[in-house]
């Protein structure tokens, strides 16, 4: 009896889930969209999850940031503090600072949320840099992904400035010093500097406006642009499909991996909670930006150890190691000690941003690339990347020169001079060393392909000679080690045409040929073993 009723019911009505899906599809047309994308494939590799760390920390930043806006007062009105933190009671401070103290001590969960927000910010930018390096060293930026590389780069720069405007909001002595630093940089600009400074701060520094202005930049303008860029970035990832490392069955025209639903969604969703959980643990055990210990900002006060958050550290380094030169001309002062670093600051970033375009110009390669390079197989690119990282790290050392001095018992002057020299020399040395290492690894790969892996088994031959037995690689490994393609250096072509008339060779063409030789010329890449070589060596002559 009951069974019949049940069947009648199902006949009359579809299950609830289906009905909801049907309702939604009738209005949103999501069925075809889902059908097309649910089985979209994503390849599996831990380094492909670096971008996810960025995305998730960005989401965490938005969630915690919204909570903080509920309690933060972006105002520079002066108030006397009477909250819970005793060593500041009775001190005059801005409302912004006082409300941050309240968030830290009097709002439920406020300090934890503040610390999650700040730690997530540091990790967000760090993850973006590492993600970018992954894309760089594997050549994932090549056609068709150059635009997405630029989007990613913009996200990094915007992330830096969102961070800067964010940590400046509490109006504490440390961040206030940073804002003063920025104002100094603005002032150093010839002609427009003073006007710009007055405009930014609504009068003489610090004025009464900058917290409110930074606030809307920090919570509205920059994150809004970033959100748009993140969406665009993800759409392009979807559209281009994800890159993959070469391997058996993995070609330039397919993607081998797991489907979006259910595997990838489950993994990505789970990873979000892991990221959130880990950042929360970090925020729960380690203090960050303890503004109560720093005191409210006053232009007449300053402390040693005044550094920006790490992602702005290289600009601090630039300014710390630059000699304090200045030019006085017709009653005007050009403060080179600040102006030169201000000009180099964007250059450091742009140097890495434009690299993909330089490489595609040098190679002249207009094909699409969906297979990733192993860094060793692109020695010049890898060397450029390491040189840039060295440059960046040297500047970070300069930015923290005082802590290097106290913790390693060195003279701060010696460190500054080291940074000044290493700024020019360090990247060159790093470039040369990295290239040598890459070429060495290429040689080892070739060796491995031809002679197999060292097995560690020593064999004594009848005539007394000792040899190590080499075990041949399996097919998959052989493929991995030989899948990369090797370019031939670009040639300028004959300098005279068929009639013997001198052809005009453009200077850019000559430069390109020269660079191309540097990339792919003799000695700049180790020719990979050919099939003939392999056959000859493995055709029963034994090996060693």
């Amino acid at each position: 009896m009951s069974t019949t009723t049940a069947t009648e019911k199902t006949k009359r009505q579809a299950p609830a889930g289906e009905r909801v899906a049907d309702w939604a599809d009738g209005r949103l047309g999501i069925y075809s969209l889902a059908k097309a994308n649910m089985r979209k494939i994503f390849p599996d590799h831990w380094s492909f999850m670096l971008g996810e760390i960025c995305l998730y920390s960005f989401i965490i930043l938005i969630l915690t940031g919204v909570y903080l806006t509920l309690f933060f007062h972006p105002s520079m009105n002066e108030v006397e503090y009477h909250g819970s933190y005793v060593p500041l009671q009775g001190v005059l401070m801005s409302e912004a600072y006082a409300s941050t103290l309240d968030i830290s001590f009097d709002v439920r969960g406020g300090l934890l949320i503040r610390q999650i927000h700040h730690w997530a910010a540091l990790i967000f930018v760090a993850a973006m840099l590492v993600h970018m390096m992954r894309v760089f060293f594997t050549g994932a930026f090549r056609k068709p992904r150059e635009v997405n590389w630029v989007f990613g780069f913009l996200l990094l720069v915007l992330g830096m400035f969102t961070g800067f405007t964010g940590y400046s909001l509490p109006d504490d002595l440390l961040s206030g010093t940073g804002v003063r630093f920025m104002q100094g940089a603005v002032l150093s600009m010839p002609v427009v500097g003073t006007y710009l400074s007055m405009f930014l701060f609504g009068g003489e520094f610090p004025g009464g406006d900058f917290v409110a202005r930074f606030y809307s930049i920090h919570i509205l303008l920059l994150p809004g642009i970033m959100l748009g860029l993140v969406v665009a970035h993800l759409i392009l990832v979807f559209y281009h499909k994800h890159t993959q490392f070469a391997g058996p069955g993995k070609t330039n025209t397919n993607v081998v991996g797991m489907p979006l639903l259910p595997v990838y969604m489950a993994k990505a969703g789970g990873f979000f909670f892991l990221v959130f959980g880990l950042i929360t643990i970090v925020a729960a055990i380690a203090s960050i930006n303890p503004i109560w210990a720093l005191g409210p900002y006053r232009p007449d006060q300053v402390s040693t150890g005044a550094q920006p958050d790490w992602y702005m550290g290289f600009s601090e380094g630039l300014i710390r190691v630059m000699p304090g030169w200045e030019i006085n001309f017709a009653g005007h002062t050009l403060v080179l000690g600040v102006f030169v670093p201000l000009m180099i600051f964007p250059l450091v970033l742009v140097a890495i941003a434009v690299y993909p375009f330089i490489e595609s110009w040098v190679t002249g390669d207009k094909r699409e690339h969906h297979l990733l390079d192993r860094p060793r197989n692109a020695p010049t690119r890898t060397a450029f990347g390491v040189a840039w990282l060295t440059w960046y790290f040297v500047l970070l050392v300069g930015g923290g020169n005082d802590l290097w001095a106290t913790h390693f018992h060195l003279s701060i002057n010696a460190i500054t001079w080291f940074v000044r020299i290493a700024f020019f020399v360090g990247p060159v040395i790093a470039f040369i060393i990295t290239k040598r290492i890459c070429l060495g690894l290429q040689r080892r790969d070739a060796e491995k392909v031809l002679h197999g892996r060292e097995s560690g088994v020593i064999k004594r031959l009848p005539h007394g000679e000792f040899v190590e037995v080499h075990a041949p690689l399996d097919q998959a490994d052989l493929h991995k080690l030989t899948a990369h393609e090797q370019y031939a250096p670009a040639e300028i072509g004959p300098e005279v045409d068929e009639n013997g008339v001198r052809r005009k060779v453009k200077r850019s063409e000559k430069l390109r040929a020269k660079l191309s030789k540097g990339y792919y010329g003799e000695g700049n890449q180790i020719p990979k073993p050919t099939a003939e070589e392999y056959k000859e060596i493995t055709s029963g002559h034994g090996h060693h």
Partner: protein
Amino acid sequence: MKKLSARRRHPLAAVVVLLLALAATGGLYAAFAPAKQAQADETSQSLAIEEGKKLYTVGCASCHGTGGQGSSDGPSLVGVGSAAVDFQVGTGRMPAQQPGAQVPKKKVIYSQKEIDQLAAYVASLGAGPITPTKQQYDPAGADAAKGGELFRTNCAQCHNFTGEGGALTHGKSAPSLEGVDPKHIYEAMQTGPQNMPSFPDTTMPEQQKKDIIAYVKAVNGDETESPGGLKLGGLGPVSEGLFAWIFGLGALIAVAVWVAAHTAKAKKS
């Protein structure tokens, strides 16, 4: 008189004279003793100076000169006062182990009594700041908030926001104030040891010094709490950045590797 002269040569005459002399001395002492109380103190002071000079000759004279006049290896100590000695020797900075950019603090090798004797000797060379009493430097009841403002105005440039210390030029440094005796903080402000400027009572009255000590003890003392968790050295964004990279991003990458390693296998066993 005859009797007396007749007994001049009596065997006990000498004893009697001695007794009389003793009685006279004792009587005189008894009569004048109260008036001479202060002088007796000065004797102990001069004794301390005497002892201090001996210690000085052994431990300090090789650099500061036999009379404290200074030499190419060490400055003159005339007029530095007992507070300077109490600070330098009491924190172990003096006697210095070796010349260098700055003399660091180390294990104290003199007892407080010996330090006082040395201080007395050096103070006797010329007037200078006097070792403060507990009443002067004890931060109990002082205003830490006011001290914080004074600290950020006068001290934080070198010693950092909460007195964690910082670098100066050519290998010199402003030391950390963590665990420093209030007396030594007071003396340092009073005398300006090594590379530190001095803040005499004329520019920074006693009460302000107390406020500063109260602030240092409030934010960097034994009972200071760190509401946010690990302090990471109290050094600001550099140590925070390092922590974020190593323990934040490092852990996340480790998790990513773990997640990527545990995947649904496509076909292979």
